[in-house]
């Protein structure tokens, strides 16, 4: 099968080469996630990306989003959109999904900012022409769009070298080489390394108030240990010249790292470390996309991807680390192929897509069943685009066939799902647009849910997410110097068959069941104001999210109707920025209300609200030989001691200074 995909890949390349037309590097329309979509996503532009030092810092700014962050340089960071759980958010790199069949957690910390053009979040359904079928499958989708290299007239090579140093003993050098071939094909090679001790001090504190009004407690400082990180990321991206008829690109990615897993903070007798566990990762993929017009009105897109990831987890005996540790290896293999065709005829647009993917997981656990999964997504999407009113109706059918070792033979199981969605956008005036969607999507059980030895349950159904959304965007002020836009979204989500672990009839054995049910009523509000002056720009973006996410699993339980774990009722952020003659300054304020670690919302399980203030300052200096860019990022200026995940303290004040030279 691998060979088949490789030859298909070659075919794609050949097609791409033959489709080359006159070099026209910049003029062709940029294929971004936004173009042609019925509903506009939330977008963080490349300009705004300059104010952050890592992708998760940008993603957490979106309204309706909760970033799950285990803290520190090596801590896992995943995104949860509208309380549906991170498994329901698809992360796409240039329109191709980043997968992890083992647990569906995509660590946002593994993507760089170099070469990233924009980050956009579609809650509900993106509906653009030539979408792959998988792009219809997630409840929400996060798109990371690469930028295309830009060459100044007469230049064929761009070099960017840079380095960052900062808190936690972090040192991160990077280099980018962009090259324009004759004929207009461009290449970008990116290399980045990071090394960090990851250590930081944090407070452990607990104060309690007594009926007589007195307060007593403790506040002590500790240092996070075993949280070092060393990693490299290397990427190569080859893009065809832009022409009206066709384009292609190929993207190869490698990420390798070794890190300490500091684990949760809990009381431990002094002489023993909390954790000595380590994790080593090797992730690699190569993906390609080829888009062309076939004949008038028809166009097509081919996408393909091969990926491999290897995770090694090492559990060291804490009392005697010299003893042999327990090691576990997980190897994910995946191959993906997609074909999409789109026809536009007047106000009518038809999109059909067919995707196929094969996943296989190899692990050296006792009694492991070596699951494989063949998935097929078939999609038909029809859009009616009148201008004032755009409507898109989409139907996706997913067939999934798993095979796994059962005794000496392989058994199989299958899950199918029909996922309809309807998206509309109505523009009664040039400044006001009303949009909404209804979508039902299913999240397939992960390999861990299904096949984790003696815990996984092979009869699980997929998680069932139903979303209803109504929103409006009003561009209140649109003048040459001032811009004010207000955006509001109200949504109702219902999550059924949520997969949770519970003890079975034999309480020593846990298993996964489709028992959870969550009902979400939410609202997002965004205000975006900016004004331009002679040589600069200033403005603010304020975002507020209200999410009432109730646990509706068991009417008899203490958890009934409680706010689900880790979702705050209120959260929001304010980003203030100003740029002037090469300078750019940003201040970002985040606030998250109280949360609970269980749906039983008792005071003992309450997590305190937190606020952080971050700042960034950058300066671009034009030199004869190139341009120099300096960037200082100050995180958590007020040194707030907080945790996003219980017992995983976040760092207090920290900084990162970066210098980049482009020539």
């Amino acid at each position, binding site marked *: 099968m691998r060979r088949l995909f490789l030859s298909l890949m070659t075919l794609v390349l050949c097609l791409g080469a033959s489709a080359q037309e006159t070099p026209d590097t910049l003029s062709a329309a940029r294929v971004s996630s936004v173009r042609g979509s019925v509903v506009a996503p939330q977008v963080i532009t490349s300009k705004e990306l300059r104010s952050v030092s890592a992708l998760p810092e940008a993603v957490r700014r979106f309204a309706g989003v909760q970033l799950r962050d285990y803290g520190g340089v090596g801590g896992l960071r995943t995104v949860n959109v509208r309380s549906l759980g991170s498994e329901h958010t698809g992360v796409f790199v240039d329109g191709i999904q980043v997968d992890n069949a083992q647990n569906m957690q995509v660590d946002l910390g593994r993507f760089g900012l170099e070469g990233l053009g924009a980050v956009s979040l579609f809650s509900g359904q993106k509906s653009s022409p030539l979408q792959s079928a998988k792009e219809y499958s997630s409840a929400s989708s996060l798109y990371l769009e690469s930028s295309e290299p830009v060459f100044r007239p007469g230049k064929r090579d761009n070099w960017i070298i840079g380095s960052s140093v900062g808190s936690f003993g972090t040192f991160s050098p990077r280099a980018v080489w962009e090259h324009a071939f004759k004929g207009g094909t461009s290449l970008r090679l990116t290399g980045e390394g990071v090394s960090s001790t990851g250590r930081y001090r944090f407070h452990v504190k607990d104060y309690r108030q007594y009926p*007589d009004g007195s307060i007593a407690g403790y506040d002590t400082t500790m240092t996070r240990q075993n949280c070092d990180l060393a990693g490299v990321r290397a990427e190569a991206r080859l893009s065809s010249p832009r022409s009206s008829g066709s384009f292609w690109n190929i993207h190869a990615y490698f990420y390798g790292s070794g890190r300490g897993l500091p684990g949760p903070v809990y*009381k431990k007798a002094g002489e023993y470390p909390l954790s000595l566990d380590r994790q080593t990762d090797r992730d690699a993929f190569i993906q390609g996309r080829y888009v062309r017009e076939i004949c008038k009105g028809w166009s097509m897109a081919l996408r393909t991807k091969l990926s491999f990831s290897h995770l090694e987890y090492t559990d060291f005996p804490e009392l005697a680390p010299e003893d042999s540790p327990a090691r576990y290896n997980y190897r994910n293999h995946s191959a993906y192929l997609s074909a999409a065709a789109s026809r536009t005829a007047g106000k009518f647009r038809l999109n059909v897509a067919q995707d196929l993917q094969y996943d296989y997981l190899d692990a050296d656990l006792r009694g492991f069943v070596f699951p494989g999964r063949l998935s097929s997504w078939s999609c038909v999407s029809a859009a009616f685009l009148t201008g004032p009113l755009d409507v898109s109706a989409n139907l996706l059918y997913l067939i999934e066939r798993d095979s796994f070792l059962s005794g000496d033979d392989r*058994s199989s199981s299958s899950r199918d799902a029909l996922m309809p969605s309807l998206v509309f956008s109505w523009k009664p005036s040039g400044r006001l647009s009303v949009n909404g969607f209804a979508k039902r999507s299913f999240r397939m059980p992960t390999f861990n849910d299904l096949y984790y030895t003696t815990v*996984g349950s092979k*009869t699980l159904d997929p998680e069932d997410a139903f979303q209803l959304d109504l929103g409006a965007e009003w561009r209140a002020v649109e003048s040459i110097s001032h811009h004010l836009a207000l955006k509001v979204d109200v949504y109702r989500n219902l999550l059924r068959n949520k997969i949770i672990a519970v003890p079975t009839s034999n309480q020593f054995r846990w298993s996964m069941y489709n028992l959870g049910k969550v009902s979400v009523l939410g609202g997002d509000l965004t205000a975006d104001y900016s004004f331009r002056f002679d040589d600069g720009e200033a403005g603010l973006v304020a975002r507020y999210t209200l999410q009432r996410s109730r646990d509706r699993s068991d009417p008899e339980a203490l958890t009934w109707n409680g706010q689900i774990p880790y979702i705050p009722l209120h959260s929001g952020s304010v980003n203030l920025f100003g740029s002037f003659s090469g300078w750019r300054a940003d201040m970002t304020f985040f606030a998250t209300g109280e949360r609970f670690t269980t749906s039983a919302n008792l005071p*003992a399980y309450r997590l305190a609200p937190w606020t952080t203030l971050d700042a960034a300052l950058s300066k671009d200096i034009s030199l004869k030989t190139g341009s120099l860019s300096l960037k200082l990022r100050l995180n958590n200026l007020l040194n707030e001691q907080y945790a996003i995940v*219980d017992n995983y303290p976040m760092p207090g004040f920290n900084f990162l200074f970066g210098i980049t030279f482009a020539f």
Partner: protein
Amino acid sequence: MNKFALLVFSMAALVVTAGCSKEETTSRDADLAGVNVAVGEKKSPFSKLFVLNEGGFQKNNSTLDFFRFSDGNYVSDAFGSMNPAVVQGLGDTGNDIAIHDGKIWLVMNGSGFVHALDASDETIIVSIPVPDPRYIAFDDSHAYVSSYAGAIYGGDAKKGKVYRISLSNYRIDGEVEVGCQPEGIAVVGNEIFVANSGGYNWVHENTVSVIDRATLKVTSSVEVASNLHFLAADSNGTVWVSSYGESAWTQDDDGNWIQNMSEPMGLFSFSNKNGYGVTPVNNVHVSCMTICDDGYLYAIGNAAEMTGGYDNTLYKVPVAGGAGAVTAVSLPGTDASRVGNPYGICVNPRNGDIYIADADYTAPGKVWCFTKDLKLKWSAVAGIIPAHMALY
């Protein structure tokens, strides 16, 4: 997940219900109001029922609650309220509670501490570092703590230990290697008995190690059954030990893992008076157990475990002084049918009241009090995974 499984396997206490009566003095914890859950029992010989909540694995949220007999109030997190300045509170995964000589002894498996508190007001006296402690037992001068001693699941097989703690200076003053992953422990005369589980091993252990108290050396080992866990001695010196049984995981036609018990969960007894001859008690499935001063061993287990069903059953087994045959009452059909996951049991020797700790795993658990006829007397919301109880 493996450590998680360990947590699940770490079960209820060997509750040493010291039958000491408590004079009615006002202790400092009288200010803790708690929640009224029952009518007070003025004539109770006990002042408190302590409940140790294990907390989630590595969540550092183990707590000590108590039910106060005088006013029928249930006080949550009494340790935290009485010792607010103790950094990180009780700690992680409370695995055993015992009352000895006016002190509450708490065995914190995740934190690697054994805490001693004043039983009258829950104020801390000392915290003793002990690696991977599991269960505790006493003689007049020492405490004995079973320990996994640094073994990890998936690592090399590693013997556990019993640590001896001096009650005069609260220091470890001796240790002895026993079998793998030792659990329940009891002192009988000049001998210490500890149940070896071998829970991390591919093939489980099946012995009780016998340690000579004077020399702190293992003198013999008694072959009982596979995967031993709870161990307690009655007043005659007979040792009662439970086994989690032996199961094989196989897959059904749908590929689901099903557990086939090759040996059921069981209860066994032996005594040095008959040369450690092991007697099985037939058809008693033990998920949690306690020996009460009324002459009976009480246990709860799933009677339908062999067929994959769910039938929680309360067993009453006569031990020293108890009379009659083993009785078994199925909890469904009684007030106790509302108990979801019986995780710990304690019995009041005066009136036969049965306390059941009911763990919920994702939410706070409950403590239920039933009369000896399994009529509901009261219930209270406990902490995360209530499991271990003791009367004071």
